[in-house]
């Protein structure tokens, strides 16, 4: 291993925390909603925060909570979490150049705090030639803390306040991803893969809403078309 390229420095952990601050504006409302729904389904504040701390996966938690009951549906909740989070299985390998150089808690801990937002920020860092995986961990840890505390706050609010489903507060979660797409656009070569991904995902979402199959399907179809086109054009490997 090279000594000149830091693999996981304290400075990068702190930089990741700093860079994740604007994203917290989108994590807070999402966490509040999760806490409010938990309260509505009869979970105690301890149970709600424990779920957020151990799962750290908002859309999966919301889906599982929407089918909650007594006794708690163990298998159905696990299945919901697995299906909604399948996209994470595609995200880890993308960060391979960073993660392959890590071992022990730094590797498995970084994977534990890998979420959509800090993964996207890390990918842009990696594409810009940064080699320090501490960024992923730092940004993820701060988001995790905000996520768990926000869930607790939402649970306490749940008894008194209940924003309507279409409230613009919820839009901030989508805004993060739209903004990230602007950064991820690499040029005209992305057009065809993105259009294919959009079409496949929109089609699958109508057939299988409430899962992440459509996200996985759209991403795989778009990426496959991109590689196929690059192969035909250059006879080499893609991007």
């Amino acid at each position, binding site marked *: 291993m090279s000594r000149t390229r830091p693999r996981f420095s304290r400075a990068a952990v702190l930089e990741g925390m700093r860079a994740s*601050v*604007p*994203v917290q*504006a989108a994590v807070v409302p999402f966490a509040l909603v999760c806490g409010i729904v938990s309260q509505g389904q009869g979970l*105690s504040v*301890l*149970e709600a925060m424990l*779920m957020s701390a*151990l799962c750290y996966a908002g859309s999966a*938690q919301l889906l*599982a909570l929407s089918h909650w009951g007594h*006794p*708690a549906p*163990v298998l159905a*909740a*696990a299945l*919901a*979490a*697995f299906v909604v*989070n*399948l*996209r*994470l*299985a*595609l995200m*880890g390998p*993308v*960060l*391979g150049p960073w*993660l*392959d150089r890590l071992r022990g808690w730094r590797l*498995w801990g970084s*994977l*534990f705090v890998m979420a959509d937002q800090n993964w*996207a920020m890390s990918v842009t860092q990696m594409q810009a030639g940064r080699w320090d995986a501490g960024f992923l961990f730092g940004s993820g840890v701060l988001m995790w803390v905000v996520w768990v505390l926000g869930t607790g706050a939402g649970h306490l609010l749940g008894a008194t306040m209940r924003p309507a489903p279409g*409230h*613009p507060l919820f*839009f901030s979660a*989508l*805004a993060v*991803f*739209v*903004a*990230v*797409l*602007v*950064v*991820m656009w690499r040029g005209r070569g992305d057009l065809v893969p*993105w259009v294919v*991904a*959009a079409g*496949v995902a*929109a089609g699958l979402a109508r057939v299988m809403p409430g899962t992440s199959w459509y*996200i*996985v399907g759209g*991403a*795989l179809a778009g990426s496959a078309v991109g*590689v196929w086109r690059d192969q035909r054009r250059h006879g080499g*490997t*893609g991007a």
Partner: protein
Amino acid sequence: MTLDPWVLAAIGAMALATYLTRAGGYWLFRVVRPPPLVRAMLGYIPGTLFVSYVVPALAAGGVQEWAGAAATAATMLATRNLALAILGGTSAAAAVWALS
């Protein structure tokens, strides 16, 4: 501050399933070493993954989401600042919400 055993079991199962996706995908790639064609796809995954996330959400949404997304993208293009883009987009969505 109660802790129901069934709720605890469900949380534990969800946590296991989630970590399986987080670590499992990476672990598989590290162990199996897929062929170059599959590895080349990884370069396209970030963009197509978020397109697949955003487009169905916008298709299911209405004017509020479309105005918010347009304002977010415009702010991000102009400033390259994530905080401003989230603020601009959410404000636009809130404006539509207040008007309707």
